[in-house]
C-alpha cells in the first residue's frame, strides 16, 4: 500500500461485511448490494485522503453505497421486482436460514423502514447518525423505527410466507 492508501485495507476489511449486509437487507439482492458496496469502497479509495479525514468515513460510505444502490435499482427498474422476489432470489451459503428469516420479516416493509432497521441494528449506528445519513430528522427515524417494528409484528401474526428450509440448499 502506498502512503496515500494508508489504513484503507484495515478499515475496508473491518466494515465491508456490515455495509454489504445493510445493503442486502435494503435491496433484497446480494448481487445488487455487492455491486453498490464495491462501488462505494472504490469511491472511498479514489479519494481516501479526504475520506479518512472525515469524522465518520464509514457513515460516508453507507450514504454513497445506499445512493448507488438506489441509482442502480432505479436504472434497472428492478426495485419493486427485486423486493417482491427477495426470498426466491436470495442465495447465500453462510447463515442461510438466519438470512431467510430476516428477509421474510422485512419483505413487506418500505425501503425507508428497512434502511432505518438495517442502519440501526446491523450497522449499529446511533439514531442521530442514521438521521444525518438519511437526511431526515431524528424524530422521523424514531417514528419510522416504531412503524417498522409494528409492521414486522403484524406480519409475524399472519401465516408464514414461502420460506422453507429447503430454500437453503441444505446448509444453514
Amino acid at each position, binding site marked *: *500500500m502506498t502512503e496515500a492508501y494508508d489504513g484503507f485495507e484495515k478499515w475496508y476489511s473491518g466494515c*465491508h461485511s456490515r455495509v454489504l*449486509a445493510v445493503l442486502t437487507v435494503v435491496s433484497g439482492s*446480494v448481487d445488487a448490494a455487492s455491486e453498490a458496496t464495491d462501488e462505494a469502497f472504490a*469511491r472511498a479509495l*479514489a479519494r481516501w485522503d479526504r475520506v479518512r479525514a472525515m469524522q465518520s468515513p464509514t457513515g460516508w460510505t453507507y450514504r454513497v453505497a445506499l445512493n448507488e444502490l438506489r441509482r442502480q435499482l432505479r436504472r434497472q427498474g428492478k426495485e419493486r421486482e427485486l423486493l417482491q422476489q427477495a426470498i426466491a432470489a436470495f442465495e*447465500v451459503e*453462510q447463515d442461510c436460514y438466519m438470512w431467510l428469516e*430476516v428477509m421474510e420479516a422485512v419483505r413487506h416493509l418500505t425501503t425507508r423502514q428497512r434502511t432505518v*432497521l438495517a442502519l440501526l441494528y446491523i450497522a449499529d449506528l446511533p439514531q442521530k447518525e442514521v438521521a444525518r445519513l438519511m437526511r431526515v430528522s431524528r424524530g422521523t427515524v424514531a417514528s419510522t423505527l416504531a412503524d417498522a417494528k409494528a409492521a414486522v409484528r403484524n406480519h409475524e401474526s399472519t401465516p408464514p410466507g414461502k420460506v422453507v428450509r429447503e430454500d437453503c440448499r441444505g446448509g444453514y
Partner: protein
Amino acid sequence: MAGIEEQLKRIGAASSLRQPTPVAELRERASHIRKNRRRLTSGLLIFVAIIIFLVPLPQLHLLHGSTTSGRKTGSTIGPVGAGIPVLGEPTGAFAQGDGFGEVRPSRIYSGGDSGESLSGVVWKSWGGVRAVGSGLGKYNESGGKVGTGSEELATIVAFKLGTCHGKVMYQALEWFFPQYGQRFSPNQYENICSGTYVGRTSQPPACLSNDLTARRGPQISPATGEAALVVDLTNAGPGSCVLDGYPRVFLLAREGNELSLAQVNHSQFITAAAPRPLTLAPGATAYVAVAKYRCDLGDLQVASRVRLMLPGSGPSTALTISLSDSTASLSSCNGGSDDPGNVVAVSPFEPSLDATNP
C-alpha cells in the same frame, strides 16, 4: 422466533455474505473513477470558458471605439490603447516567443528550450491588477508544464502590473493545471520584463515512467539472512531527465495482490546515504537495490513481480518487472507487522551498483 432487532444484530455480527473484493480490483476501479472525475472537471472548465468567451467585454469596446460586441484577441486587435497593459515583451529567454507585447494574446509560446506553449487562450479579465484566463497546454505527471504530455486546460495568470521600459505591462506570467492540484504560485513565474525565469531551476525535467525501461539487474550477494535484487532503470527517452529520491516498491503475488510489507530506506545491505538528484542522459542507467530479511517463521506469500512507482507519479504509470523462481525468498512472512521479514529496504536511485551498498 427472535425479535427483528435481535435477528438484525445477529446478521451484523455474522461472517460476511461474500468475500470482500480484493483491494487490487478496487484500486483499478478507483483509478477509473479518478480519470472520469478529471474528464468531468475539464469538461466543466471548458464549458465555463466558452460561456466567458461569449460574454461581451467592455474593454474591447474601449479598444475599438465602437459598439461591437464581438470578441477579438489581442494579436488582431490592432494598436494598443493608452493605459491598456500588454503582456510583457519578447525579450531575453522569451525573445523568440509568441504573444508577448500584445493585449489578450490568444497564443503564448515561451520560445525557450522547453517549448512551453498555451493555445486557444481566453482571457476572463484584463486590465486589472491581475489578468486571468484559460487555454490548452501540455501537462505531464511530473508536475511541470513541458512540451510533452497530454493537452489539458490550464489557468493562466498575468500579474505584477507596472511600467517596464516605458510601457504599461504585466511583467509576470504563470500558468498551471488546477484539475491536477496545481495552484497559482506568485514566486514561480516568467519575468516577461527582464526575460528570465523566476523560481525555477534549469535542470532537466523529472524522469517519467515512459522515459525509462526497467529490467532485472545483475545477481548480487546480499548480507547474511537477506534476499535482494537490483533493478536497472535506463533512460530510453530523447533527452536527459532527473531521478531523485526513492521509488515506492511493491512486491506482488502471483494473484496480483500486494504483499503486506513496510518500506524502509536502508538495511545491512542497502546504503543509508541520502538521495541526490541523478541526471540520466539518454541511454544512461540508474540502479535501485531492494532487499529484505528472510522469513524465520515461514513465508506467507511469495512475490512474482516487483512494481516501482517513481516519485510524484501514480500507480497507473508504475514500472513492473517479473521475478524468476530464483528470487522466491522475496516474500511476506507469517510473523505479522513485528516480523523483521515484513520490511523491505529500498535504496535511492544511484548511478552505480556499488553505490546502492553501504
